[in-house]
């Protein structure tokens, strides 16, 4: 497989994304290196073929957004909305990620080795997210399906209004959101955490994590609640 390099200091971003949307599908190029991303927005968005993209440096907003099948690695940090609405494949951030990481992801795996900002995994729809560091407040808000593994701490209102997504946290949780609750870790949970940590390349004891899931008390309108919510 061929390798290709795009230097965003010399080439416009559109050249890179156009190649990734068209030429990359021919299957001859297996690996693309992106130099000098310098915080540009929309790097490697909307990919839909199994290519490897390595972004060397810091990416701006929405890097790897809507990813399908591709593997996008960012060696630095990622701005707001990294891997937003990912469908499949993998987005791996070696540094930290800003707000809304993995928002609404339907599938695939998002790995953030550092910390993630606020609202990580908001409205998660089936994707998996592994965060090596801590996540900010309101993470996994209204998350519907998929799993989040948080190796550090979590901010306020973790898992507020959760649906069927499941969260695993190793560190301290500042507060749980409405309707989220701690549950017993089963053998299946430990195996799931072990598998996700393994895919993320992070070394933690899966047994040290706590499971958080929905109480499901907000699923149905309760006429007896006297308009309290």
């Amino acid at each position, binding site marked *: 497989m061929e390798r290709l390099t795009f230097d965003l200091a010399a080439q416009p971003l559109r050249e890179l994304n156009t190649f990734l949307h068209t030429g990359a599908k021919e299957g001859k190029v297996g690996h693309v290196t992106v130099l000098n991303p310098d*915080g540009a927005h929309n790097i490697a968005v909307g990919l839909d073929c199994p290519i490897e993209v390595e972004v060397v440096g810091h990416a*701006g907003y929405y890097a790897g957004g809507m990813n399908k099948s591709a593997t996008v690695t960012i060696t630095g940090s990622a701005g707001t909305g990294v891997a937003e609405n990912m469908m499949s494949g993998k987005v791996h951030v070696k540094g*930290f990620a800003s707000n809304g990481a993995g928002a609404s992801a339907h599938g695939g795996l998002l790995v953030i080795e550092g910390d993630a900002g606020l609202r990580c995994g908001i409205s998660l729809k089936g994707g998996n997210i592994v965060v090596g560091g801590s996540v900010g407040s309101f993470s996994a808000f209204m998350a519907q399906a998929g799993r989040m593994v948080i190796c550090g701490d979590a901010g306020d209102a973790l898992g507020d209004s959760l649906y069927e997504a499941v969260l695993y946290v190793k560190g301290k949780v500042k507060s749980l959101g409405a309707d989220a609750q701690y549950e017993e870790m089963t053998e299946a949970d430990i195996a799931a955490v072990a598998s996700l940590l393994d895919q993320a390349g992070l070394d933690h004891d899966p047994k040290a994590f706590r499971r958080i899931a929905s109480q499901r008390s907000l699923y149905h309108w309760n006429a007896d609640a006297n308009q309290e919510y």
Partner: protein
Amino acid sequence: MCGIVGLLVKTPALREKLGELMVPMLIGMTERGPDSAGLAVFGNPLAETERKISLYSGLTEDGADFNWLGLTHELKAHLGVSASITPKGNHAILGFDIAPTVVKRWIKEHHPKLHILSTGRSIDLYKDIGTPAEVAARYGFAGLTGSHLVGHTRMATESAVTPDRAHPFTAGEDFCLVHNGSLSNPNGIRRMLEPRGITFETDNDTEAACRFLEWRLREGDDLETALQKGFEELDGFFTFLMGTPDKLALIRDPFACKPAVVAETDDYVAIASEFRSLAHLPGVKHATVFEPAPEEMYVWNA
């Protein structure tokens, strides 16, 4: 949306290059703020009794042809004060050694359309409408020197696009603030401050935050205490970057609705709304880059 930039140089040799390093930072935030731009730069303070004020003549009938030298002659004739003037088109820095309130009252009486941008011993302030590149070229930002600066690119949402509503805002002496976001209670803050004799010059929400924090500092709060009171009283979305003669300070609202990123090396601390404004800085590839947490105070000393 708006863009924020800040730069504080630790290495004295870089003070000469402060403006040169900053201009690409400001221009990098053009997409976030294309309608106005401005910055406040802090340098070595004047002597205890001296003051300087930055003035903007763009709102007067003469605009950039304002007779700045004539202004110093008038001040000599009326107040007996020998003032220095450093003009640059519609902008000038006026220096003198009497109480600034006397000079400012005289200016307001005799040249009501002359806009006073800042007052102090360390601060020079420039702001105008136009793209960041246009404003930077208009005032020669690349040639500015000093220890630290606070800059802003504006995309107006809360008040009109006019030079006096551009950022930075100032209050009192040697204090400025830039804002990305929108406050929900600026009128409540105004109603609290106005009975205390604090007057406002615009209907801009950021001015309320600026005057609130400067009022706390004047009441004796240290910067950290004032910022804590800011968290308690100011409601809405904000990333604020503030400058004093010896400090840069940054805070973000509890929801971190507006972005900020910091790059720090042995030579400088650089702050911007987004990394793309930091990407050109020397040595940034090896800088410590981090995102400031919400509701935390970040204070850097010049």
